[in-house]
C-alpha cells in the first residue's frame, strides 16, 4: 500500500468512511458479511507499513475496509453479477450525505430501527448517548443536565455504545 502523510490519510479515510458505513448499515443484520469483511481487513492490516499505520490506525482501518469492498465489487462486476450494492456505492461516494439512504421510506425505516435499538438500552444510557451524539452536549453539560457525575456520563456512554452494538437488528 502506498504510504500517505497522516493528514492526507485522514482525508482519504473520511471519504471512504461514508461508503464503508453505508455498506455496514445494510449489513448490520447479516453478521456473515461483516465477519468476512473483518477477516480480510485484519489480514491486510497486518501487511501495512508499520510506522504509518501506527500514526493513524483508524484512518487505515477505514481505508483498508473500503478497498476490500471495492475489490469485492470489481470481482462481482467482472463476473457479470452487477449488484445494486456496487451502483449504490458509486453513487454514495459522490454524495455528501452518502451513508444515509436517499429513499425517504428507507430513511424512516432506519430511524425506526435505531429508535427500537435505543429503547432496548437502559433509559439513562440511551439518554446520555443521544445527548452526546445528537445534541452534541459535552460530558460536563450532560452531567449537569442529568445531575450525575462526569465519570458516570463517561462510563455509561461506553456501556451504551457497546450495548447498542449487541442489540438485534431487525429486518
Amino acid at each position, binding site marked *: 500500500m502506498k504510504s500517505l502523510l497522516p493528514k492526507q490519510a485522514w482525508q482519504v479515510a473520511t471519504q471512504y*468512511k461514508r461508503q*464503508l*458505513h453505508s455498506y*455496514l*448499515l445494510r449489513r*448490520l443484520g447479516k453478521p456473515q458479511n*461483516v465477519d468476512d*469483511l*473483518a*477477516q480480510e*481487513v*485484519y489480514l491486510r*492490516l*497486518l501487511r501495512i507499513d508499520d510506522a504509518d*499505520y*501506527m*500514526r*493513524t*490506525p*483508524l484512518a487505515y*482501518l*477505514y481505508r483498508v*475496509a473500503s478497498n476490500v469492498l471495492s475489490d469485492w465489487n470489481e470481482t462481482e462486476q467482472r463476473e457479470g453479477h452487477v449488484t445494486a450494492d456496487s451502483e449504490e456505492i458509486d453513487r454514495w461516494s459522490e454524495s455528501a*450525505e452518502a*451513508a*444515509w439512504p436517499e429513499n425517504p421510506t428507507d*430513511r*424512516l425505516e432506519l*430511524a425506526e430501527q*435505531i*429508535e427500537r435499538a*435505543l*429503547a*432496548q438500552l*437502559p*433509559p*439513562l444510557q*440511551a*439518554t446520555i*448517548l*443521544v*445527548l452526546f*451524539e*445528537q*445534541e452534541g452536549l459535552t460530558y460536563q453539560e450532560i452531567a449537569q443536565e*442529568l*445531575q*450525575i*457525575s462526569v465519570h458516570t456520563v*463517561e462510563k455509561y*456512554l*461506553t*456501556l*451504551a*455504545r*457497546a*450495548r*447498542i*452494538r*449487541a442489540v438485534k437488528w431487525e429486518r
Partner: protein
Amino acid sequence: MDEFKGTAEELIAREAARWVQQLKTATPKEQAEFARWLRESRAHVREMLLASSWETVLHHLGHERKVDIDRLRAASDNVVAVTPSRRSSVPKRVLALRWPRFAAVGLSLAITAAVLLGALPFLREVLWHEYATSVGEQRAIALADGSIVSLNARSSVRIELSPERRDVYLNDGQALFSVAHDKARPFRVHVDGSVVQAVGTKFDVHRLAGRIEVAVLEGRVRVEREHPDAVAASSLQVLVERTQLSEGEALSISNTGTISVPMPVNVSEISAWRQRRLVFRDRPLGEIVEEFQRYNAKPRLIVEGDELRERLFNGVFDADEPETLLAYLASDGSIALERRGDDLVIRARPIVVQSAP
C-alpha cells in the same frame, strides 16, 4: 446494577466503544496502542468497524429525526420494566399493578386480557416503581415529568406518577429532589407519616434513625404531618402541624412528629453527598458512623457507650474513606480505637488518675 457481563464478543464490543471515544482526543502514544490492539485479532477489527458505524448512524440520525429525549426519559418510568430484555438486568426495579380487583372479577382470561388492553393507557398511569441502592452505590433517576431524583447510598424510594399527582415514598436513606415545575401536579415526598410538598424546587430529605431532616436548596416546600385517616382529620378539625421551609433553610421532624423551627443551612453542604463528601456540623458520633456505613460495609464501625455516641463532632470527610474519620478520631486523645476481627470498636479512653509522686 450495571455489570455488562457476557460473552467475549460483548467485552470486545465494550473495548471498541471505549476506543471510539478515546480516539477523538488520543495522543500519539494512545494511537499506537490502539493500532496494536486492532492488530491483535479479527474480532477487534470487526467490533471496531461496527462501533464506528453505529457512531455514524447515531450522528446522522440527528439531522434526520431527533430522538425525543422526553420519550426516552418517559421510558424510564413506563416502558422499561415491560421490555423483556431489560427485566433481568434490573432486579431492583419493581413493577406492580395496583388494581388487583381487575383480576379478581372472575371473567375468562380472554375477556380480562381485552379489558386490560383497552385500559392500557389508563393502567400505565397507576404503575409504580421502586428504586433502591446498595452500600456505596448512588444513582440518579430521571422521571417522566422531567424531575430528577438523586438517590444516596443504601436508600430506597417508591415513585408513583399519575396525571393528578406525583408521590414519592422515601422508605430508607436520603434523596435529593430536583422537581420539574408543574402546578397541576403537586410533588409530594412521604416519609414516615410526614409530607414534604413542592412545586418546582430542589430539596433534600434524609431519613435518620431518630428523625427526618429536610433542607431546601432552591424554591420553597411545605412540610406537614400526614394524618393516618384524612377524612377523620377534616371532620374532627384536627389541627395539622404545618411549616413552610424556604431556600437555604432546614428543619427536622422527630420520631414523635414534632416539627422543629426552620434554621439556616449551608446549601452546598447539604448536597455534598452527591460528590461523595460527608459534611458534619455538630453531629453525634453515632450518626456520623452510621453515615459512613452507608458507603462502606467494611470495616463495621461500632461506637461503645451512650456518652460517646451522643458526643458532637465537626468535619468534612471522603465518604469512601472511613480511614480519614478514624485518623481524625485517633487524634483525639480521649478516644481509643480497637480492631476486633472485621469490626472496629470506637470507645472512650478510660481516664487515668495519675497518682502523686
